[in-house]
């Protein structure tokens, strides 16, 4: 059999295979270069970027939980200026598309940031993280209110010509409502899920383990929730969906693809195995070969739900 096609298109970005790395779990890519071949993965999504450098939360920032982990990094990042000065030159050296995950603490910050990134050729696209509190509006999270989400996405849309992925929060009653709102506002693709809000307590000290009290749950534990949401959203929208949440193996990734994901992102798995993204991409290829599937696109949304 000839080589199967693994390439997919997300919002106009061509990926050599559907395996991307999730924001905040892969640094700016260079950290992982000693462990895998960055040219063998579909895309790199960089750590959440903001306009100004952000200190992030005090420590402890991470804690292991059953089958998962909580993080409350607090979106620490270098800010757009340092990003342009120090990170972009490295990204120029790799041919794999680099997608910049961004966030703001106000509507205006989102808009301005998107505008500044629009001019940078090395940025193949942007992923808008809307799981952030709107500091100006009493801290309500953009991504949990369809109207607030619409406003953010709409503003970003007007400030960028780049392919725009919107990353959805799972901490909502109806993820489909949120998804539709973002698509209506101009999202070219949706990625989900971000982390579930959780908490861990230390009995001895009688304190929350995380300095921030609550944090975001990721890892295998959340996979069933992520799979369900991806399935719900993929059936409800026409833009491509990117599946994220607890993907550890090629089998996990293929399950998300069956559920309707055009691509997947690998997050926590990078910590357990820094070559995970490459291994998973290779595993998908092997699966296609062994099952005589000529094109990965045959599997997207191919889940059979009749009985």
């Amino acid at each position, binding site marked *: 059999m000839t080589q199967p096609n693994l390439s997919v298109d997300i919002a106009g970005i061509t990926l050599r295979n559907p395996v991307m790395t999730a924001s905040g779990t892969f640094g700016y890519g260079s950290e992982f270069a000693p462990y895998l071949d960055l040219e063998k993965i579909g895309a790199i999504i960089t750590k959440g970027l903001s306009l100004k450098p*952000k200190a992030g939360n005090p420590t402890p920032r991470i804690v292991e939980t059953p089958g998962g982990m909580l993080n409350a990094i607090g979106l620490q990042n270098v800010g757009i200026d340092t990003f342009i000065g120090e990170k972009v030159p490295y990204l120029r050296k790799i041919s794999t598309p680099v997608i910049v995950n961004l966030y703001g603490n106000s509507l205006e910050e989102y808009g301005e940031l998107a505008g500044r990134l629009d001019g940078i050729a090395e940025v193949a696209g942007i992923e808008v993280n809307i799981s952030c509190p709107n500091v100006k509006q009493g801290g309500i999270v953009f991504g949990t209110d369809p109207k607030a989400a619409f406003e953010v996405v709409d503003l970003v849309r007007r400030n960028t010509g780049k392919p725009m992925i919107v990353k959805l929060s799972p901490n909502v009653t109806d993820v489909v409502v949120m998804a539709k709102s973002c698509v209506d506002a101009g999202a070219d693709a949706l990625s989900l899920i971000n982390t579930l809000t959780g908490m861990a307590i230390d009995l001895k000290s009688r304190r929350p383990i995380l300095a921030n009290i609550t944090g975001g749950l990721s890892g295998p534990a959340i996979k069933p929730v992520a799979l369900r949401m991806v399935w719900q959203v993929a059936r409800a929208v026409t833009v491509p969906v990117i599946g994220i949440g607890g993907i550890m193996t090629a089998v996990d990734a293929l399950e998300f693809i069956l559920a309707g994901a055009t691509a997947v992102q690998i997050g926590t798995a990078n910590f357990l195995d820094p070559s995970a993204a490459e291994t998973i991409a290779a595993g998908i290829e092997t699966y296609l070969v062994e099952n005589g599937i000529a094109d990965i696109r045959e599997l997207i949304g191919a889940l059979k739900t009749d009985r």
Partner: protein
Amino acid sequence: MQFKSMVLSNVEVSPSYFRMRMTAPPTIGVSCPGQFVMVKVNPAIDPLLRRPFGVFDLGTFETEFTDCGRQTYLEILYKVVGKGTAMLSTLHQGDHLDILGPLGKGFTLGDPAGEKLLVGGGVGLAPLYYLAKELVKESRVHLFAGGRNKEDILCITEFDRLGVETYVATDDGTLGAQGLVTEVLEQHLSRAGANATIYACGPTPMLKAVAFLADKYGIACQVSLEGYMACGVGACLGCVVQGKDHSEATPDYRCVCKDGPVFDQTDLLWS
């Protein structure tokens, strides 16, 4: 690097302290003592994250099982404190582990002429053994080992054998002097040369006290820190500590995993 390793031995050297020797590829490059490895205790998701351990020793031994007749090994010295270390302690010769490392920036050996003062609290001794092995080649080395009781004082004979002069202090006086190891250290510092260097690893309160003494006596001091880690390679920003210039407005966070675990004590904010 990331490699599959086989347990060669796993011995309880003191109640709840274990010393594990495992295979390593000959190409394993430990650039300096003080680096660490991240160990995936088992391939299951419980425990999920890798566990960080300092490199206690590294070497080769003769064997008929490799073509070249030698096998590289790595040793860690660990204390059973929770789920991951408890599982580690049940492993036997022949069991397999997945190792990431050596990682991070270790100790700077510095001017051989200066006296080398190693300070270890409990299992904080772990990275100091490999350090001592390197230092004794050219320098005079002292070890100050502290713990709650004699069972926390590990592998002293091994240091002795290297020719290191050892001083012991325990809270309950069951071994060495009764009191804090920093008290014993201070006695020594008062007559140490200005070109001496302190190398410390142990619980944070001990490190703070050591850093304070280093300032007081104007002696160079490198400390090896711990931090809760997920990635070990500087990507997740889970393990950070505040650098000396840190403030909310101008954040100066350093990754223990990548910028450390060893820092010059003057580079850190000791709040």
